[in-house]
């Protein structure tokens, strides 16, 4: 039962990542990210219940609080303030991107086969999903031109990391958890501030234009 839940929600995260790849509207992308984080939280809680690791409840709580509520809200606010709502044409069009992401998923899964011996089925899947998620997130960063989307992609990568943390480890020490979460928030804030400065300066969120420093 728990295994199914885990695998399902993990798969859900992957799907949400795929949707982000296919998506151009910024709000939707942000919401997708929120959804993804929610699924992450579910994974955490499930783990907490099944392996009776109470501290994972905290992780879940943090995830929900920050990643499904705070960060999306902050980002939407930023988007509103800037008033640009659609992603401009990425470097790769959607179909090709999706194909590439499929390839990346394969890579992720191929690697996760290394866990078969010793660890149980679930771990294998979680790692596979997590690595695929990581690579897809990175791929998004590579192909998307909007600052906001890049932030979202980065956060997706972060989610992947947390998925591993939650799914595979017996939970990091709490203080470290807090520290990391805090840092992530800080990073997002700083990123947000920079985005606003950039927009204020260039009247655009298209970071592909930031290419004056060569050689």
């Amino acid at each position: 039962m728990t295994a199914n839940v885990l695998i399902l929600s993990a798969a859900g995260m992957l799907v949400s990542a795929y949707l982000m790849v296919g998506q151009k509207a910024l709000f939707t992308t942000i919401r997708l990210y929120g959804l993804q984080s929610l699924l992450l939280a579910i994974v955490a809680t499930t783990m907490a219940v099944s392996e009776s690791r109470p501290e994972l409840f905290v992780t879940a709580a943090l995830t929900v609080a920050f990643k499904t509520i705070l960060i999306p809200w902050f980002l939407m606010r930023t988007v509103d303030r800037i008033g640009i709502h659609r992603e401009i044409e990425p470097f790769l069009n959607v179909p090709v991107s999706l194909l590439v992401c499929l390839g990346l998923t394969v890579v992720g899964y191929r690697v996760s086969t290394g866990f078969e011996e010793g660890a149980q089925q679930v771990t294998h899947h979680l790692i596979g999903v997590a690595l695929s998620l990581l690579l897809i997130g990175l791929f998004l960063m590579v192909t998307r031109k909007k600052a906001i989307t890049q932030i979202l992609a980065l956060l997706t990568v972060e989610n992947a990391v947390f998925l591993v943390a939650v799914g595979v480890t017996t939970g990091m020490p709490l203080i470290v958890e807090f520290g990391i979460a805090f840092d992530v928030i800080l990073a997002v804030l700083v990123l947000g501030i920079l985005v606003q400065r950039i927009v204020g300066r260039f009247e655009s969120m298209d970071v592909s234009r930031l290419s004056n420093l060569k050689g």
Partner: protein
Amino acid sequence: MNLLLWTLVVPLLTAAIGGLGGPRPFKEATMAGGLALTFALCLATANQFLGGGTPAAFADALRVDGLSALVLVLCGFVGLLSGVYGIGYLRRNEARGLVTSRMRREFYGLIPAYVFAMLLVSASNNLGVMWIAVELTTLASVFLITFHDRDTSLEAAWKFLVLGSLGLAFALLGTVLVFASGQGSLGEGMGALHWTRFMQVTPELHPFTLRLGVVFALIGYGTKAGLAPMHTWKPDAYREAPSPAVVLMAVGMLNGALYCVLRIHLISKASLGPEFSEGLLLTLGLLSVLIATPFVLIQWNIKRLLAYSSIEHVGIMAIGVGLGAQAAVFGALLHMTYHSLAKPVALFSAGTLAQLHSSSNFDRIGQGTFTRAPVASAVFVLATAIITGSPPFGLFFSEILILRAGFSGSHPTATAVFLAALIVLFCGFAYQVGHLVLGPPRDPADRRVPQPERFDIGMATAVAAAVIAVVSAFYLPAPLMALIRAATHVVWGGG
């Protein structure tokens, strides 16, 4: 309260005070005094370690062994240097009315904060804490990069932050996986992430998970260290950040990141055998040296030039560790030391030249700076001679150690390539510097009149640093040597 904590608290306080308002002399005094005190405390800590103790705090989450002590001292040193130089730097800008109160606050707040973060990195024994500390350095340096608030500085900051955060995400994943590889054997609670704990249980670590973790951690921390191909943020950041901050990046940040890389490397070495991570380090190191070469040849900006030199040097250190010979490891750590002593000289003199001409682009600075700024130019030439590893200066000896180990070791071909790259790099630097320093005095028609060279506090710092760098080639104080040996023992003897 324990010494190590003081070492960390003092810069933090300095940052806090500097970040608030206050008259300039007061700020300057705080910064100089605070950083001097920090350096002193670093020395004291190192001394305590050499005395046989192991300074530690927070249940060993912070713990100073040979490696930490070395990095700690070097960070403290450059912290002090850049603090003092920074005062001169800001004064110069203020003399030309370029400094707003925001800038002042940022400057006096962020520089000590940056130093604090680096010290935290180098003292951390807990992989989690280590990660957090590195993240802090990133956050502290972003606003130093945007200090001048030019279009390009925003661009540089954005690239720095995005790449940095990505790297950190990778590093975090690496940490998590490394942690995961020790399921069960590591135990519960804070101590579970202690590096020392890992070293105790290395045999039980799950090999594949560990491999995966090591790869991600190396990419992650490699990004911060500026190993190719994750080095791309470096030139931009160096160009945009004010020279004092650049010094912290080029030495403190570099050493700190390398410190993290080494910690991970040691775990993997103890558990998976040397080949795995040494192979990775050697490859990335060689790649970095090779990548740096062409860009030095075609460089157009003095600070980017030095950025590529940092990429080269971190590459050399990685190669030294990757060659997998005690002599080479010693060479690498010696290289780290000498590089930390030499790089500030280069950056200070280059920064001065750039400031005098109010641009760091070669075409703006023009030729024949010898005639305009003899002292700065002379120091810069000297610094270049040092950082290109010409005898009789220190880096030559460390490079020779690495080369010798390489040729007698199992990677002669790689070493030969490395040597060739070094030669080309020298030629590149010789060309760039000669082009800059020599040549006819600028034509009077040129309306961009440079500032006259004045022997202010910044220049004094540069000269002092130069003297130290030169003397160090012939004489390193015994305690420092002891530290380097201890560090070698950690990295080679494993624990």
